[in-house]
């Protein structure tokens, strides 16, 4: 388990939060959401969970953490969830699928893009659960 990656997950989430113009006081919390999510993903994957389950757990933690921080800091949960998900984004999979399309490797591209679809589905499912159980703040 490469622990240093947790630091980089924090860094990626916090930096993208700044790039998305998050209020500066919310930035450390956004980074923390990224660390939590990526940590859950990497840890469960390391202990042999299939990728789809790992990403579901990662997104679940980002979303639950986001809801919690939203209450503590009185900010919308989006503030933490969008940057927090960043290290888990299926960007690389979409990209390599498209690249294989460009190369004419259609079956490989189909495989990768289908996997991306399910990956995003697992991500979105993990994301959708905590807000469904949490009462809206205000």
């Amino acid at each position, binding site marked *: 388990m490469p622990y*240093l*990656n947790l630091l*980089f*997950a924090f*860094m*990626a*989430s916090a*930096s*993208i*939060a*700044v*790039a*998305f*113009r*998050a*209020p*500066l006081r*919310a930035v450390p919390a956004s980074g923390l959401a990224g660390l939590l999510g*990526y940590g859950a993903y990497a840890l469960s994957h390391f202990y042999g969970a299939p990728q789809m389950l790992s990403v579901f757990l990662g997104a679940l933690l980002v979303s639950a953490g986001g809801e919690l921080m939203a209450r503590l800091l*009185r*900010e*919308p949960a*989006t*503030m933490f969830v*969008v940057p927090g*998900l*960043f*290290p888990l*984004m*299926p*960007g*690389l999979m*979409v*990209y390599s699928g*498209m*690249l294989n*399309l*460009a*190369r004419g490797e259609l079956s490989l591209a189909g495989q990768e893009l289908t996997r*991306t*679809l399910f990956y*995003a*589905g697992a*991500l*979105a*499912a993990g*994301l*959708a659960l905590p807000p469904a159980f949490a009462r809206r703040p*205000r």
Partner: protein
Amino acid sequence: MPQPAEILPVAAAAGELLLRCGANVDRVEDTVARIAQAYGIAEVATFATPTGLFVALGTGHHTATVCRVRERTMALDRVSALNALSRELAVNPLPPEEALRRIQAIAAQPGPLPTWTDVAFSGLAAAACTMLVGGALSDFGPALVANLFVQGTQRLVRRMHTPDAIGDFLAGAGAVLCAVALSTWVGSAFAPVVAGGIMVLVPGTAFTASVRDAMAGDLVSSGARGLEAAVKAAALASGVAAALYVTGRL
């Protein structure tokens, strides 16, 4: 008691600004409804899509408006400020003109940091992603340099008001060319450097939002977001493929 016609501009302006700041449609519809209800208007119909917003208020929904949203840029500080304002209105409904002024002030407020810093921080995020996808520590510096260049290029192209796809194409090509140049000159790894840059450029957020909207039942928004993601990814992949072809790596 304010009339629906007085409240409509306030609710619609808030919704439109949220959409321009990249908020999710369910949040936009929710906020518009909350603002209207804060002024005692119970009957609200809203329909938000990433490219536009419909709002109808009052008995029989006779007072209605349409807003078109052409550009969306993530601005979480404005989402936060609008959230605070809508919460404030629920407790203390300001006069509609005053509320509208506040919304316009939020639309004009400068970001927490100067605009150029978002290039720096996007580059930093991309370099961190390079580490996450398996780059060695020694690749961090080269990845940062490459991505500062890529992000800068993309912003410059966008500033010329060309379609987004052109900026994405050039950014994808730039990511590959930078990674090739750096791997030749300083011997950094090629694949992780490209991959980190790509992760920031690729529309993962749009793609995830699309699936999320589909699950929430916002089908129009889901389709629109999915298409947005597909077009962006295609433009990016074309740029990458073109650069790989030119450098003989395809």
